[in-house]
């Protein structure tokens, strides 16, 4: 389980580490759904390049592909992720962020007070 988590995270960050792919995600998000052709036209790139990027995004689980005839339509997977899970993550992010701040505060409170140089 722990190994799977690391792989998944690696794939996610690899997918997001490319600007073109991030732009594609943004476009899909704006429009709700895009075909591979639409994305290629939008970014003025070759169909093959776009397809490669989409495959990386799909393997990272960031987009879902549905085939309609000759068209491959892409939607953003976060919309289909468990809402409860995303909510839990927000809850945890809140606490982790708070506890980071607590860590800093505790360091500060334990600084010896005295004349500064």
């Amino acid at each position, binding site marked *: *389980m722990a190994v*799977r*988590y690391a*792989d*998944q*995270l690696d794939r*996610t*960050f690899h997918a*997001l580490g490319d600007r073109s792919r*991030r732009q594609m*995600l*943004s476009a899909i*998000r*704006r429009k709700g759904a895009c075909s591979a052709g639409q994305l290629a036209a939008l970014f003025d790139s070759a169909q093959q390049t776009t397809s490669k990027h989409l495959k990386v995004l799909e393997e990272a*689980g*960031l987009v879902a592909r549905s085939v309609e005839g000759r068209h491959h339509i892409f939607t*953003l997977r*976060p919309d289909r*992720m*468990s*809402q*409860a*899970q*995303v*909510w*839990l*993550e*927000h809850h*945890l*992010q*809140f*606490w*982790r*962020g*708070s*506890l*980071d*701040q*607590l*860590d*800093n*505060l*505790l*360091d500060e*409170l*334990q600084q010896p007070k005295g004349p500064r140089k």
Partner: protein
Amino acid sequence: MTDLPAYVLEREFAAPPLLVWRTWTEPALLARWYGPNVETIIHRLDVTPGGLWLNEMKMRGQSAFQRTEFLEVDRPRRLVALMASADAQWNIVASPMMPDWPRILLTEVTFQPKNGGTHMRLVWTPHDASPAEIACFKAAMDSMGKGWGSGMVVLAELLEELKRAE
């Protein structure tokens, strides 16, 4: 009670338990760390059984309210409280965005001395929860093991940033 899903968060701090306890129970200190990147205003903090902590967090011109009722106070070892989202009048409300998320979470935090520092353990359990709320919390717990976790939040936040930058 024993069958309720529970989430456990543990953390170590390089500070003695009594100091950590103070940061949780003194308003001037609590306001400084509770709520990442938000302005925290503590309207009331009465750390006794039955006492209330009424908390407001301001972000981007909006306020979020939280009502916490202490159940057990065992200085400096243990705090047990019921934490809930609230409206501006401090009535407990469900989150409009996630109505099945447990409105009230039983929150237990313990501070154990460890190697000169403190081992803190936080446990959340749905309280007085409906079957839907319990199912929602349990679904969230179960999906944690499937490896999406923080990656998803990173993505959600990244996409928000992209949206803002457009």
